[in-house]
């Protein structure tokens, strides 16, 4: 029980606009610590919606969500922000860096927000992470000046800077070529194996999914196979 990173029970969600429509139906899922899980499914099956609920950003759902055995459902927005800051790293399909800041600053900002490290330490950690993805030479450039692939790698480095327990990715390799996808996948694998970090990614990439520890297949707002 205590080695569960995330536990969702009875997650149900409706979209209200333009008409009321059920997108998630009674989803139950558990993710162990250090597990590398992929969620796949057709467009519109609700996999991204599920991921946003699991990330605590979306609070409009029924059911309960526990992160590191702490109930996240019903917590105040400020508490959820703190939980995200501390234990969840999020990688989006599009990089979403802050273009006015240098890459290093972009990576540092979540660490500075958390406030556990001094400015100097945060800078070192951020540089470290950039190095992992081979973009350390871009550290002082404005994020807006980088190529798409480089930006995505900086974005992943940013998700990792606080060493979160859970890393979530919404098509994290969607904008990367096969070489970079390979690099990112290997790193994800390494994070889960060596550092015990939990990874949950939504992907279209069958190959990527197959190579992860476990694949959750979704269709019409339900999990249709759940190989344990």
């Amino acid at each position, binding site marked *: 029980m205590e080695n569960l990173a995330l536990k969702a029970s009875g997650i149900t969600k409706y979209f209200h606009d333009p008409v009321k429509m059920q997108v998630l139906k009674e989803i139950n899922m558990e993710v162990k610590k250090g597990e590398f899980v992929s969620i796949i499914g057709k467009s519109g099956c609700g996999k991204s919606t599920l991921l946003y609920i699991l990330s605590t950003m979306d609070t409009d759902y029924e059911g309960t969500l526990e992160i590191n055995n702490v109930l996240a459902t019903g917590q105040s927005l400020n508490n959820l922000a*703190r939980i995200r800051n501390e234990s969840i790293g999020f990688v989006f399909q599009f990089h*979403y860096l802050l273009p006015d*800041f240098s890459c290093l600053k972009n990576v540092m900002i979540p660490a*500075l*927000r958390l406030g556990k490290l001094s*400015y100097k330490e945060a800078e070192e950690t951020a540089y470290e992470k950039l190095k992992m993805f081979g973009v350390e030479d871009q550290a002082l450039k404005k994020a807006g000046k980088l190529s798409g692939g480089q930006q995505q790698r900086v974005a992943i480095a940013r998700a990792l800077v606080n060493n979160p327990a859970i890393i979530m990715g919404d098509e994290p390799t969607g904008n990367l070529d096969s070489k970079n996808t390979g690099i990112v996948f290997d790193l994800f694998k390494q994070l889960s194996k060596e550092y015990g970090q939990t990874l949950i990614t939504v992907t279209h990439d069958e190959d990527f999914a197959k190579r992860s520890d476990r694949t959750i297949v979704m269709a019409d707002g339900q999990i249709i196979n759940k190989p344990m």
Partner: protein
Amino acid sequence: MKISVNTEIALTYLTSRKKQTVVASLGVMFGISMFIFMQSLMKGTNDYFEKMSFTNTPHIRLYSENKVADNHMLKSYFNDPSEKILTNPKQLNQSLGLTNPYGIIEQIRRNPEVANTTPQVTGNVLYTSGSVELPGNMAGVQIDEEDKMFDVQSNMVSGNLHDLNRVHNSILIGKGIADKLSLHTGDNITVRSGNGNTLMMRVVGIFSTTVKQIDDTKSYANISAVQSLMGKDRSYVTEIKINLVNYMNASKVARDIETITGYKAEDWIKANEQLKAAFKIRAIILNSVIGVLLLVAGFGIYNILNMTIYEKIKEIAILKAQGFSGSSVTSIFLQQAIYIGVMGGIVGLILGFSLTFMVSKIYIGAGTLKYLPMSFYIPHYIQALCFGIFTTVAAGYFPARKASKVDPVTIIRG
């Protein structure tokens, strides 16, 4: 110095859009500098007119008021409220002079609020030279005291006012009288009082205030000369003029003096109601102009921050996804508003001061007014800064709150 991550983000946003930041702070700058400039001009002008009004009005004027007879003495004699007394009230036939004026002056001088006090005899006279007669009024004064209180010397066009004490039956006349009667210093003038006495006097000086009505009618003579012209004795004094250490206390001191002496004490505020009304109207006009200026500056800031938030909405969503709380986001945008306000405010203070300083060197040269009257009054600068910062915070608050309410899911998922 360790700055918080919110501050760092706010500063980066400000510096990455320098043009917009500068435009927004220019708005605040103009608002604040205009505020200072206009307040300085208004206070300067008001002070000037206040000072001007004291060149011929004392802070307090004590005189004997005509009274209407009443029946309070009778009432106390009958001492019975059921008795109804029918009377026909009449003006009392009493002297216009004050009883025991020098005793009163002694008493008034003991008041620590009083700076100067001088007796005066005023009478209506006819000035005659050759066949021309001119009505006017003559003030019998102690010229040294009068000069101390009203700076008569500064109005002198020719002659010497101290000759009033040296030359027997001498007179200082207004420039209007001198022109109309074609008189110069050293000429003689015949003055006739209301009761028919005439006196030949020598013109020892000519003065010119900026008020035509005064220049055309007024003259100064020694108090004893006027007393004898009026056919009165040496204790005849029609009014006592009092100047205070601080003229803002005039109404209070006037009430005290009224109670002690039993004569009417009129303070300068009552004597210059129209001046006060003009002050008020000017204040309303200027304050509304300043209000509009700051409002416009506020809308500028509101607009720019609103635009920033639309531009940065994805970044705000991302910050929230990374664990920035709503209050952190509010702080980021409110700080931007405050920095714009402080920057514009400080430059505005400097600009306001320089503008005021430059305008105070503009030569006007009308009457006794040489340069535009501007005041350099520190509280105006403090007020201006407070107003400026208040406006920017108010203008920044609403966009900042809107930013804090951005829902990351809707923005990121599109």
